[in-house]
């Protein structure tokens, strides 16, 4: 019996190809069952995320099993997708690859944590539907243990690597939990939306959206379950919020020092976190001179994200060393 893995991910296939292999979470057990029906395969697990679909199987013969899986993939896609998009692993390389995946080393955002849970749920689905066996169980259990160790011992998930996550981290450093924090979004563009969503996902209390086009403000407010504010009225709302995300296409400053100074008394001088992700900048740099204001522009936030990415990259070698040690110890290499 040999462990094999065939798959495609963001490194090898564009989204147009990847989406043809996507399997929704409730159907992962069923998909694992389809692998077991293939000749010479005795167990299977299917991992499917937005960045990858991978088929893990226990085959009587590695070569034959890989061929069976490859044909299955072509049948699934409805055509031969060619070899360029697909990678195949066998034996110890399967274990090495799975450990890298669950540790976040193979992710688009290095060190991201979501993939660990996705892989765990994929394995659980296959296990519950009775499609895993012997070495496949051992492989996944060991990979989860290694993934956990890698994340605990190394700094692979430390720091933030995107504008949204940096903004959320900073907001939490200022306000603690965000349950009592109100957010105002100035400008209804994509960057505003993703940053506001990041803040909401970490529990922000409520969202106000303002935009020159009130209709666009209403649409985004509806999407975020917030409240639309007319553009000539946002200064009033400034007194109520804790975080402001500004990303308009205005060629001049939208938020001036006078605007913030005007709201200070009403705010009782509470801390105010301003995130300016517009170019040219929406918020006058002088606003940052106000004592209780923490102003971050796109350059600063991107620099923090780049530093985060750099720190994570430095950890890759350490993570890989741990993976090798653990796999050798367990006899999977």
């Amino acid at each position: 019996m040999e462990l094999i893995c065939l798959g495609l991910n963001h490194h090898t296939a564009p989204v147009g190809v990847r989406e043809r292999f996507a399997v929704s979470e409730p159907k992962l057990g069923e998909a694992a069952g389809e692998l077991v029906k293939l000749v010479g395969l005795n167990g299977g697990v299917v991992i499917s995320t937005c960045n990858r679909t991978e088929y893990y199987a226990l085959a009587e013969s590695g070569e034959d099993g890989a061929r069976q899986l490859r044909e299955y993939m072509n049948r699934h896609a409805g055509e031969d997708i060619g070899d360029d998009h697909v990678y195949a692993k066998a034996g110890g390389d399967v274990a090495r690859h799975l450990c890298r995946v669950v540790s976040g080393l193979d992710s688009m955002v290095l060190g991201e944590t979501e993939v660990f849970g996705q892989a765990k749920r994929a394995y659980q689905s296959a296990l519950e539907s009775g499609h895993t066996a012997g070495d496949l169980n051992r492989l996944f259990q060991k990979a989860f243990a290694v993934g956990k160790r890698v994340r605990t011992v190394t700094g692979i998930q430390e720091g933030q690597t995107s504008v949204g996550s940096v903004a959320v981290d900073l907001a939490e450093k200022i306000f603690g939990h965000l349950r009592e924090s109100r957010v105002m979004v100035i400008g209804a563009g994509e960057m505003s939306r993703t940053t506001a969503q990041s803040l909401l996902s970490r529990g922000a209390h409520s969202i106000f959206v303002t935009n020159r086009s009130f209709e666009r403000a209403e649409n985004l407010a509806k999407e975020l379950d917030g409240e639309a504010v007319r553009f000539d009225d946002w200064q009033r709302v400034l007194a109520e919020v804790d975080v402001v995300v500004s990303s308009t296409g205005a060629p001049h400053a939208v938020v001036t020092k006078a605007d913030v100074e005007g709201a200070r008394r009403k705010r009782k001088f509470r801390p105010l976190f301003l995130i300016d992700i517009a170019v040219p900048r929406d918020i006058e740099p002088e606003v940052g001179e106000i004592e209780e204001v923490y102003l971050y522009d796109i350059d600063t936030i991107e620099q923090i994200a780049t530093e985060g990415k750099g720190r994570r990259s430095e950890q890759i070698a350490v993570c890989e060393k741990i993976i090798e040690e653990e796999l050798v110890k367990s006899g999977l290499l």
Partner: protein
Amino acid sequence: MDKWLLAGSTIMVVLGGGLGMLALQRGQRSHWTVVCMLAAFVLQLAFLGLRGEARGACPLGDHGEKLAFLAWSLVLFYLLVGPTYRLSLLGLFTAPVVVIFQLLALAPGMMTNDPEHVAEVNAWGEAHSAFSVLSFGALALAVVAGMMFLALNRLLKEHHLSTGLFKVLPPVRTLSVSVVRLTLLGVIILSVGMVSGLLMEGGGLNAHLVAALIVWLGYFALLVTHYTRGMTPRRFSLGVIVLFVFSLIVFSLV
């Protein structure tokens, strides 16, 4: 024996602070800091108990005892406030202050070796001394939290976010709320101390009480401004620090 207890507690505080500092360098928090501070607190209690028994009164008879009592109240409030606000890092900042107070207390000439047993206990006088020193424990801890706030505020304003200190400091809101609450607690206890002072035999409006009244008014004005008009956390923290330093200077003169 009593001095050995105080020395032991000083060692525990140094240990707690040191472990906290090592953890800080690794960007972590040390749980052992709280354990060491707890051990230091028990040793301080034993020290104050022995001195109190020897005096037959509150152990505030000489400068050494006052400093030790102040250090004890600092650790007491640290243990009370720390877990509530999850400010275990406060120990790290509290430790050097406690160590300084206790080393001064242990310095030659600060503490009598054989404390005199008092002939008669003035209950209001004892209450005045104890509550006043206790209040300064809370106010000193407000200073510590205020300094932590100022450090974090500066790091955030200047975008220095990769330091170990930044990673382990509690959020701005937690710190600013702590500074206000500790100040409020200190002022309430100080008020009790002042009323006790007015009620004690032979009390009345002496220089000591006038100084206490000025300090109390300063804190009171700070709190009233905060709760009514509002105040930036930075200014409140600076106010707390300035008032504390001012009170130390004033009380050393009267």
